[in-house]
């Protein structure tokens, strides 16, 4: 073809090229389609049934942190046991061991992972405890030791006020890292924590926290370092060798007074050992199957104010379950099928938990049990607990509020 014809064709093709822009604002009702989206909002009072609470999901000795608090109505103390030092140690690279004849000192390394920054004169009191600590140890079991076996007290605020956070006299120090974690080093001498060869240097310690007010912390013990004296007499050499040996934690927990009260007919979430509540929801099939739920809210009425340290506001998670086995129902840990609500300590306001994600999941999976498990987002990591009225209290029973859209009337003229 001639160039002129090609240009002519190109112009034609260009003018006829595909274009698409069809969206225009409408003025109703004259220029609106027949049929429209409608939204219905309804409160289902009897939608929650067979609800109950269970405790013991995360006990204190399996919690990620130890909780120490001295609050009105709550006294919690951290307890932990350390690996034994032994009676003989190696000095060199060979396998020859030498007897430990004494201890110079030891340093306890611990970290405060959470604290109420409004608390002043925050002190840690370290106690020697019986070596028989285990998961069954109670607050009452250790009441005596926490009274008469004080090893040392450290004022964290005082240390923080010192240059570099160090007390050159006592050897204690603190440092705050970028995550607000407070690293504490407590130096103990042999009189505060004596080495007993009969126990192989086994140690069990406890920590109480104190402050002018709001004394509540979460802490972890990292390690302990012994500075020991070893008899290394070789021939005429009678020098005592001073060596450093580190030991880790073999057990950690915390004891609380008073212990958690029974639930009665209430639902409960949080606390230690942690409690969960299970609720079975009855959503009308006509809504779940034929409508699109755009908002679903579970409404719970607190039976008592949320308890815990004032700084321990916590999140409640609403999970659905893979199968309903009651207290042992396996949870679905999927962010898209989990809804949360924030609980403030002392609050008695009606709690609304948005469970839209769960309802939409049930709409898409008709075999999924319509069961909601409520749990604390950080189970065992704080003392906070909230209790709600259950369906056994009809006037304040859990309710479900649904906002949904019935099916659009497709196929109208």
């Amino acid at each position, binding site marked *: 073809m001639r160039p002129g014809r090609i240009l002519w064709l190109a112009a034609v093709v260009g003018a*006829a090229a595909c274009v698409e822009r069809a969206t225009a604002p409408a003025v109703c009702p004259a220029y609106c389609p027949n049929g429209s989206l409608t*939204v219905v909002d309804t409160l289902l009072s009897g939608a929650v049934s067979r609800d109950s609470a269970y405790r013991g999901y995360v006990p204190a000795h399996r919690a990620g942190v130890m909780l120490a608090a001295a609050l009105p109505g709550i006294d919690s103390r951290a307890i932990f046991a350390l690996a034994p030092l032994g009676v003989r140690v190696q000095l060199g690279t060979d396998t020859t061991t030498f007897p430990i004849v004494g201890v110079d000192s030891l340093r306890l390394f611990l970290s405060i992972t959470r604290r109420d920054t409004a608390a002043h004169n925050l002190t840690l009191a370290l106690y020697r405890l019986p070596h028989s600590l285990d998961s069954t140890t109670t607050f009452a079991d250790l009441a005596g030791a926490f009274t008469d076996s004080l090893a040392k007290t450290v004022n964290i605020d005082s240390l923080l006020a010192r240059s570099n956070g160090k007390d050159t006299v006592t050897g204690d120090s603190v440092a705050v890292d970028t995550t607000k974690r407070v690293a504490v080093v407590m130096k103990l001498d042999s009189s505060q924590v004596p080495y007993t060869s009969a126990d192989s240097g086994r140690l069990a310690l406890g920590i109480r926290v104190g402050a002018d007010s709001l004394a509540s912390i979460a802490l972890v013990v990292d390690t302990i370092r012994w500075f020991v004296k070893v008899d290394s007499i070789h021939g005429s050499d009678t020098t005592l060798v001073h060596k450093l040996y580190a030991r880790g934690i073999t057990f950690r927990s915390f004891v609380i007074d008073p212990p958690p009260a029974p639930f009665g007919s209430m639902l409960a979430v949080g606390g230690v050992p942690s409690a969960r509540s299970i609720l079975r929801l009855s959503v009308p099939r006509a809504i779940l199957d034929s409508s699109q739920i755009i908002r679903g809210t579970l409404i719970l009425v607190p039976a008592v104010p949320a308890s815990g340290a004032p700084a321990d506001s916590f999140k409640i998670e609403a999970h659905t379950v893979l199968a309903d086995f009651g207290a042992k129902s396996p949870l679905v840990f999927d962010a898209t099928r989990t809804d949360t609500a924030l609980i403030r300590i002392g609050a008695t306001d009606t709690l609304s938990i948005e469970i839209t994600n769960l309802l939409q999941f049930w709409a898409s999976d008709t075999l999924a049990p319509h069961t909601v498990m409520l749990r604390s987002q950080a189970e065992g990591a704080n003392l906070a607990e909230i209790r709600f009225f259950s369906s056994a209290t009809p006037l304040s029973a859990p309710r479900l509020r649904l906002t949904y859209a019935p099916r659009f009337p497709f196929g109208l*003229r």
Partner: protein
Amino acid sequence: MMQGDSGRGGAAVGALAVLFLTTGLPNRLTAQDSQYGVQGLGTPGRWESVRARSTGGAFAPFDLTSPLMEASLADAGRLVAGAMEGASYRRSELAGTATSLRETRFPLMGLAGRVFGHFAVSGGFTTYLDRSWDVTIRDTVVLRGTPQPYTDEIASDGGVADLRLAAATRLRPWLAVGAGVHLLSGSTRVSATRRFDDSTSYQRLQQSDEVSYDGFGLSGSLLLDLTRALRLAAWARSDDRLRARVGSVVTAETDLPNMIGGGVRLAPSPSARLAAAVAWRSWSDAGPGSFNTLSWSAGMEVGSGLGPFRLGVRGGQLPFGPGATAPTEFGIAAGTGRAFAEGRGIIDIGLEHLRRSGGGLKERVWTFLLGLTIRP
């Protein structure tokens, strides 16, 4: 009709066909939209080729590539295949708000040829109703005691096609008759979306489904040559009901119109032709908000061979609108054509401008038309 220019062979035809089809993939085989069709059945198709549409539709009754009448097929000398594309640029003014819209459509494709001596048959499709639109609605609803502003977007994408099988013959040298059966078939993908301003509390609401349509129609027509220069055309068509289905459930049944029309063509010389046409359609059968329509057109085609010039005007009513009377439409069109490959390929182009008004709405539409006819 045009004559072929100097020979270039089938390669040129092939190149044109490729160009035509690659201009844009046909996402919709529908015609030109209108906001008037949102609340009604849709926007009726034109049933006109580019050549006929460039004359305002006046030549449609006499054009064998326009699926308006069957009797014109009797003039088919050999196999003819045709298709067209239209690219529309529409400005819609409603309640003080102007919106610019644009769409590309492929509203026509057909095949016609002579069989069994004097018989000619044709098969193809054209747009019966265009149901492609997309509207947004801004409003507020009170939910849980709080006003919640939202935006709805309701969209329909698709239409109803008219699948026509037609036959025609010339009973006398001055009389041609034809008849056709029409299967109406199509579907639309309808979606309804609501977005709340407070998207944190209220999730997006979205529903969609496919609505299918079916119907049936019969038509008949005749061409009468009073003289060598004067030809008359008359046609009638009756369609039964348009059934809308969602899944297997019939959700709506709407009566479709009966139609009659006619035209006259005067060809005082081989290079000059004048035509006029009129059509009446009983769209009020479709129910409330529908109106019977009377449409007219007049046009001319001068020249032949390398570049005929076409011009036409049209007017009439639109079948759907919100007021007490039917919206009106007036348009002018012009176009030309070019034959290639010894007349085996013809490319027609046209430009149409429409003005529609009624019920508070005004529409201005510019449509570029591109048609391809192949005679292998």
